[in-house]
């Protein structure tokens, strides 16, 4: 695009412009744009720099957090809701032993091992609840349904089954769960960073 037409985007230039001094005027314009631009860009750049700070922040690495003891999870195949408690840092505040989320723990009849399911619906991230009458999980937001084992009950808006969490039974009877969160709305179970 020519210089002229570029200017035409902003203003309709006066048709008569003095020939002499045009070069000087061009330099003045260029200098004005550079100086004004630099002055304005400084606070803008500083602003953008700080505004993007959240991209630098990383979630704490997933670790096994104590949730409850085996005695609280009877082997009746019915899931029970437990809070996941952990120290948590929120920007400047450090919280000691705070509930940071919820899991469903379930033990099949006669089984020693415990299954853990994240309470977050894989569809849109709502809190999945137990539907005691129907022996299933139901999400109150868009009615996704899951069996007590976490698999989908068709038809369901959810793209995948409930997210299972790694679960360990410690020697002293404590159940620990590897606390992770996953992207919602996608078919694959992808851990959030």
């Amino acid at each position, binding site marked *: *695009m*020519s210089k*002229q*037409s570029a200017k*035409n*985007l*902003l*203003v*309709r*230039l*006066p*048709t*008569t*412009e003095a*020939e002499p001094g045009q070069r000087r*005027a061009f330099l*003045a*314009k260029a*200098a*004005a*744009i*550079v*100086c*004004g631009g*630099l*002055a*304005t860009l*400084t*606070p*803008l750049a*500083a*602003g953008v*720099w*700080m*505004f*993007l*700070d959240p991209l*630098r922040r990383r979630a704490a690495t997933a670790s096994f957090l104590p949730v409850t003891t085996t005695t609280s999870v009877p082997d009746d195949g019915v899931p029970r809701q437990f809070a996941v408690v952990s120290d948590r*840092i929120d*920007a*400047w*505040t*450090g*919280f*000691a032993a705070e509930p940071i989320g919820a899991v469903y723990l379930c033990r099949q009849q006669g089984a020693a091992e415990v299954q853990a399911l994240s309470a977050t619906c894989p569809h849109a991230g709502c809190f999945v609840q137990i539907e005691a009458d129907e022996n299933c999980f139901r999400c109150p937001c868009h009615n996704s349904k899951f069996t007590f084992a976490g698999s989908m009950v068709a038809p369901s808006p959810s793209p995948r089954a409930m997210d299972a969490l790694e679960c360990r039974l410690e020697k002293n009877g404590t159940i620990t769960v590897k606390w992770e969160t996953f992207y919602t709305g996608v078919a694959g179970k992808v851990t959030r960073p």
Partner: protein
Amino acid sequence: MSTSMSNSSKQKPGLLGQLADFFDDRTGYRKLVNELLFERVPGGARWRYVWGSTLVFAFMTQAITGLVLWSSYSAGAQSAWESVFFIQHEMTGGWLLRGIHHVMAQAMVVLLALHLMQVVIDGAYRAPREVNFWLGLVLMMLVLGMALTGYLLPWDQKGYWATRVATNLAGLVPLLGPSIQQVIIGGPDYGHHTLTRFFAIHAGFLPATLVIMLVVHLSLFRKHGLCARQPIVRSDGMFWPDQVLKDAVACLAVMAVVLGVILLPALQAMLAGRPIVPGELGAELGAPADPSQPYAAARPEWYFLFLFQFLKVFEGWGASGEFLGAIVVPGVVMAMMFLMPIIGRWNLGHRFNIAFTLALLVGIGLLTGMALNEDYCALWVNKSSLAEAENLLKKTEGDPVKLSAALGGNQAQIIAMQKQFKKLEAIRNSESFLAAATQAQMDGERAIELAGRPERIPPSGALELVRSDAKSQGPRLFAQHCSSCHAYVDPQDAKASEQLAKASAANLYGFGTAAWMRGLLDPAEVAGPAYFGNTAHSDDDMVSFVTQDLTDRDTWKLEDIEAVVVAMSAESGLRPQQTAADAKATEAALIAKGRALVSDVERCGSCHTFHDNGTKLGSAPDITGWGSRSWLVGIITDPTHKQFYGDTNDRMPSFGKADPGSVPILSTQQIELVVDWLRGDWYRPAVSKAAR
């Protein structure tokens, strides 16, 4: 030119051109831009016209930086300081952004003064521009209002106390004062709502009003055209690019100065070979606001210092004086400024206005200078020239009769001396301000160090961190409750003997260390001022034991004494860093040997209970765990307990014991703070900030 023009207009415009045409047809924006840029500047562009533009630029900078700060600021009594700390010390570029916002605010005040001066000198307030001049004055007050409200937002000691003063002054307005004050601070006391309100005023009400006023100000400015400097000798210029270039250069210069102010300390650090800590650049952040902690360094921002100083003129006038100084006089001055366009109609009126403005600025300058001089004169006044006056003041205690007698009734000398006394008092005031300012800086740095702990700030806020910090609270509590008897001075210090002479109880510096114990067991020191010398125990059993028994080399070999020293030091369980200086202090065999000696009922154990040596309590303090946290908390809580001095206790109060229904002198937490401070038990960052 004309051919190319006609050529291009014949050509079908490109895609962008078509788009531009589309929007121009529907909005007419080209005409608007045209009007904005192609304004005639009578007499050509000039540097003196740049001030208005720099102010618009400064405001735009404040708007940009302010909005981004807003995105990370949390207005609440337990989160304001904390979020500002996070912005300043943890977020990328936070220090720079906050620095620009802070320094540009000050630059804006300077630019306001320059703009006002230029307008008055050029007579730009005269018809038909009166309304625009008034608008300008309103804009000035809005900017000052933003400066005042912004000062509080970090909720640090400095802003908190300065704002208390400012809002108390607002309470002096007749009739409505107290209500205005209560509305502004959001209730009867300072807290969450003070912050939410100040934030809303600072970032909402005032800037919104300012933007509206500014639009009117600028459109009126365009309506009347530039008020050209008379007489016009040069040919007219155009706003674009002639004046815009000058404006842009001026704006860039302002920005450069702002950045310079922020980065100057970094340059100094670099030249001195010190590491640069970004969080220490830009705006300062003091210790979190604490209504229970005095803040003697409270001062308004420098551009309000003149008002602060002006109020001192009315000292001694009582409430009416403050009303006069804070409300009436500034009100009259503002009224005079609003009247300038009217006064300027008369022949001499314009000159009067110029004289008035200059006098005002000179007055402000003088008052600011006086305020600074009062605070900082100790830095530049040579005190040695006042040595004679100082001696005389000590001798006469400022009593005029004694002074007259000392100077033989020489009236001229008495007057001269009284002047010097005043100077001395001024220096003393300045010294205490400087000390308070240093203390404030130390407190601020410590608060920031604590907030940077890996555990972060507790949900109850940074103030709790500071209040439970032994390093900063210990010395305060000690000074208040202990130092009237006990010294706390390094014996190696040059002034140690002077301070020890003043003390009437043991020197607690290094209590619990081997060095301290070594001194106690030194016959030359035990009855000295650092130990029992100035107490009721100066001729007690312990003193005679050290001076007589311990000097008997048959029973007490020197290495035995040393073993006792390290064993006792081991009882205190101080941090290894403190005992590391004594290589022997950690030798297990030596400690065991010492313990046996202390425990021995023929030796120390004959009076002192020590672990399970079976010696009954009552004859001397139980030295099990001597110098440990619980032992120190115990003795401070109640030295009259039979575990300690019992009824042989000298003058030491039972700080933690109270009669039923009353409160003890010190709470358990306070006693623990003193103890932790004495023992050097406080948070230390694993890696110092500078090393990071």
